[in-house]
């Protein structure tokens, strides 16, 4: 099981994952606000 705190590389991959998830969330919020 991957542990993001075990190495810098794994923590960096977790950061990339968080960036993608929050970028999608922000885009969705901006689109919903623009439509409504």
């Amino acid at each position, binding site marked *: 099981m991957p*542990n993001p*705190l*075990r*190495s*810098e*590389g794994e*923590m*960096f991959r*977790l*950061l990339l994952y*968080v*960036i993608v998830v*929050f970028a999608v*969330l*922000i885009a969705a*919020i901006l689109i919903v606000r623009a439509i409504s």
Partner: protein
Amino acid sequence: MEAASIAHAPGSGPRLPGHPAGAAEHEHHGPPPAHRSSRVDPQLLGMLLFIISEIMIFGAFFTAYFFIRVAQGDQWPAPGTQLPVYPTLVNTCILISSSFTMHWAQTSIKKGNRFGLKAGILTTFLLGVTFLFLQVNEYANIGFAPQDAAQQTIFYSLTGLHGAHVTIGLILLAIVTIRSWRGHYTPDEHRGVEVPGIYWHFVDIMWIVVYFTVYIV
């Protein structure tokens, strides 16, 4: 007791004739030495426990934030105030960039590239200083004070708590930068870069969450 534990440490058992060192390690059974995890090195275990405690601190501040916005139902941001969403987005990009340069420094020293280590760690430090400078500049020009209302208090508390973590990270990065220039770290021994790197990525992840909840939602 300690000596008995050390005798059972992986790789410290008797080597059988004709068996490579790796085979002897596979023959190890039983618990790890006392006061040690069998899975994580002590330095990394310390950082892991520290980051878990940090998440709980941020959790306490987020609880106050959600209490104001959800339980109280107060308007966010407070009436008559405005948060600089886009300037802070630029600042967010600066901080995220610093994680990439940190990763560059780490991968460079793993390959024995000392220039990459020094350039990466110095760039990370300068990007972190820039982030902190812009954050202070934002405080100076935002137009409200922490004591004005509950919303303002939690705004300064959450962003200030994160700013304190950036400051600690910059102190760690300054130490790593100086040690890099003095010729420390090798492809085999670079724990001093790895552990601050984990902390720095954690600070970046936490900022993404803070930015999203405070500035966007």
